[in-house]
């Protein structure tokens, strides 16, 4: 036997042994896939989020010994924010673990769109917290989608309410010019429908301006903004596009305090590269902001003091890290909820779906979990897969994010008819049977 053959044989025996060992262990484990990105153009934003998610699952395992004794097995797959790679990751991970994937967080609206078609067939719920299809909050049609905490229509509406408040009412917006600078992808296009609706209602001019992936070339866009002098610019960017927008705004002298980013354009990696140019820039908050709360003390005690954290301690508490924590916590609580009905054992995606749909987090429970001050209570139902529609506005003061508004609720008298119409259209196109939510418990 040559050396090469010997090595190959040894390796295959080792691999087979490992595979056997892992099936033996896997009996009381809940598998959760993580579609994240630590490489590529969007890595600066993907990394802190991924760290938050990984740390929360690790915390639940370390502190509580899993969810009611069921250990979480979490596996990351790097999508690079590309839809094709995201689908590939999903296909690779969906059947792992004793019961398959509990749920999937695509962390990309494009991937969410793709998985929306697959989820009902594979019976795996899609949690798209703060992103995804805005009409997918209608659970009667989108049984498997959960855009928890807020859709882009909610985000756009909250920003418009804030602007209206500053101007002295929605009627004062008449004749104003509002531009949306957006990532030319399903993500960036989401708020257009709501903003067009608001423009029609209040008589302001709305101009969407696309920026192509990855968004480092925006000179033409900002020269047009300089020439057209809009009153406000809304920013729907992601990754390096955000900091480039802010830098270009500074370069053409557009006032940064008249710029409002969505909650994916309002984290530290978005403003820091622009240095002084970012001062005054506003962004919507997906409820939480930056800072450390109850849960962070546990993270320090159980992970970081033992050298088991994924991030560096000074990054713990940044906006996107916290969002990763929140995202993982909602998933864990949904599994916990599902366990009350199906038993304290690894659950299937279909069982976890019930858990998400019946998820309710009271203020007291949030405090217990250490998320007091980060989130408001939420209640998911069959007809409302968003759970809550609250948000605030924050402003970058040059060194940190400062919350500058009270809580807003997106206006359901505007949103609900749009959601229903869009969901109905989707159901008709796909010939879906619509659930009657009034008959669901």
């Amino acid at each position, binding site marked *: 036997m040559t050396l090469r053959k010997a090595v190959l044989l040894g390796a295959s025996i080792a691999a087979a042994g490992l595979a056997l060992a892992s099936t033996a262990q896997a009996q009381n484990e809940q598998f959760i896939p993580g579609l994240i990105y*630590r*490489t*590529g*153009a969007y*890595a*600066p934003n993907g*990394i802190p989020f991924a760290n938050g998610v990984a740390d929360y699952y690790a915390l639940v395992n370390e502190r509580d010994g899993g969810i009611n004794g069921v250990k979480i097995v979490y596996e990351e797959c790097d999508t690079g924010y590309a839809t094709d790679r995201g689908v590939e990751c999903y296909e690779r991970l969906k059947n792992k673990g004793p019961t398959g994937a509990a749920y999937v967080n695509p962390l990309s609206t494009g991937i969410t769109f793709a998985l929306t078609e697959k989820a009902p067939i594979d019976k795996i719920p899609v949690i798209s917290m703060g992103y995804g299809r805005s009409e997918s909050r209608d659970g009667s049609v989108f049984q498997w989608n959960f855009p928890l905490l807020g859709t882009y229509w909610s985000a756009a509406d909250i920003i418009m309410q804030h602007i209206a408040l500053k101007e002295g009412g929605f009627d004062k917006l008449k004749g104003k010019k509002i531009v949306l600078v*957006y990532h*030319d992808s399903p993500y960036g*296009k989401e708020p*257009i429908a709501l903003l067009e609706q608001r423009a029609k209602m209040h008589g302001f001019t709305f*101009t*969407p*301006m*696309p*920026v*192509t992936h*990855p*968004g*480092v*070339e925006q*000179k*033409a*866009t900002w*020269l*047009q903004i*300089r*020439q057209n002098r809009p009153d406000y610019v809304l920013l729907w960017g992601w*990754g*390096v596009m955000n*900091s*480039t927008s802010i830098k270009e705004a*500074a*370069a*053409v*002298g557009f006032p940064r305090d008249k710029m409002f980013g969505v909650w994916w354009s309002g984290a530290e*990696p978005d403003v*820091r*590269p622009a240095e002084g*140019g970012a001062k005054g820039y506003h962004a919507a908050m997906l409820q939480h902001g930056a800072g450390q709360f109850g849960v962070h003390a546990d993270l320090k005690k159980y992970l970081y003091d033992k050298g088991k954290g994924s991030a*560096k301690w*000074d990054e713990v508490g940044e906006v996107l890290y916290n969002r990763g924590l929140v995202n993982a916590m909602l998933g864990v609580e949904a599994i916990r909820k599902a366990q009350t009905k199906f038993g304290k054992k690894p659950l299937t995606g279909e069982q976890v779906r019930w858990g998400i749909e019946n998820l309710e987090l009271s203020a007291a429970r949030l405090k217990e979990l250490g998320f007091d001050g980060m989130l408001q209570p939420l209640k998911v139902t069959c007809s409302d897969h968003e759970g809550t529609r609250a948000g605030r506005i924050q402003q970058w003061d040059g060194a940190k994010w400062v919350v500058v508004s009270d809580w807003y609720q997106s206006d359901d008298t505007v949103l609900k008819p749009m959601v229903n119409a869009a969901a109905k259209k989707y159901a008709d196109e796909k010939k879906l049977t619509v659930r009657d939510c009034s008959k669901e418990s």
Partner: protein
Amino acid sequence: MLGPFLETLIGGLLTGVLYSLVALGFVLIFKASGVFNFAQGAMVLFAALTIARLSGEIDGKEVHLANFVVAAAILGVAVAFIGWYAWREYIARGAGPGERRKMQVLAAVGALVGGIAAYSYGKGAWPLWLAIAATAAIMGLLAYAIERLVLRHLVNQEGIILFMATLGIANFLDGFGQTLWGSDIYKINLGLPKDPLFLFEGVFPGGLLVDPGELVAAAIAAGLVVVLAIFFQKTRVGRALRAVADDHAAAQSVGIPLNTIWLIVWTVSGLVALAAGLIWGAKLGVQFSISLIALKALPVLILGGFTSVPGAIVGGLIIGAGEKLSEVFLAPILVKQFDLAGGGIENWFAYMLALVFLLFRPQGLFGERIIERV
């Protein structure tokens, strides 16, 4: 109307110069080896990451000590190699008093560099110039590794095989660079002016907006082009490069060392990548998207011709100005006519512009017309 037009035109031309800088790297390698080097973008990213991380503009996130040690070692070896090479030349020529002084100066410079590197490391980060020098040495080493491990095995293969090999190199470098240095956004502080200039405020309302940072970048790029043109036309190595480009086998048969030539050309294009990375990195922040700028160089190359240095420059200017003007003035018309959701045409417009040129000049504006008799 004239004001906005001029402003867009100037902005476009300046961006175009930066595209040219990336396109130049492609042209160099294509000229010398007939290879379309898909890894040029990855090399730009790798060089920029190395400079940014070594020079320590890192937002308080530290780099592994081993990286500094290895970078210092590579720089040391490079300085030693240049010293050794000079010493050999010196022995060969016979030592005169003037030559001896040159050697003494060289040794002093080497010692000084080493000393400063060691001293600076004690303070945590390196000054920019030292980081640039180390990165230049690292790009040289990279060129050597590529020649030794990839190209040498593919001598006299079809161009497409070499192209596929560079695809592999691109993927490897993208991953390797991010593994080594991280994938966050890092800063290179070149000290480029940031405040916009407003020219002719008396003539146009609001003046013409010009980014002074881009002016400086354009000047650096122009300087680089002049140096490269001289290198190709006037030096012995430059002539050898052109001979290799024409025919590998024929060049080898007249005694041109193919492997050395490839090493030189990859080093030079590595240095061009360094310059591009330095400027793009200072402008956009060093992060992965820099490697995608290479895609912008493609229409530039199609337009300017794959073998022409001036072609890369003129092509860059036309593409830069063309795409910005089209986005600002053509897109709104298209949006109105065809009811599009906004513009965003600049990305594909550059390619369309290049294709239209191809209809009339298939070899590009400055490319060599290929006549093959069969």
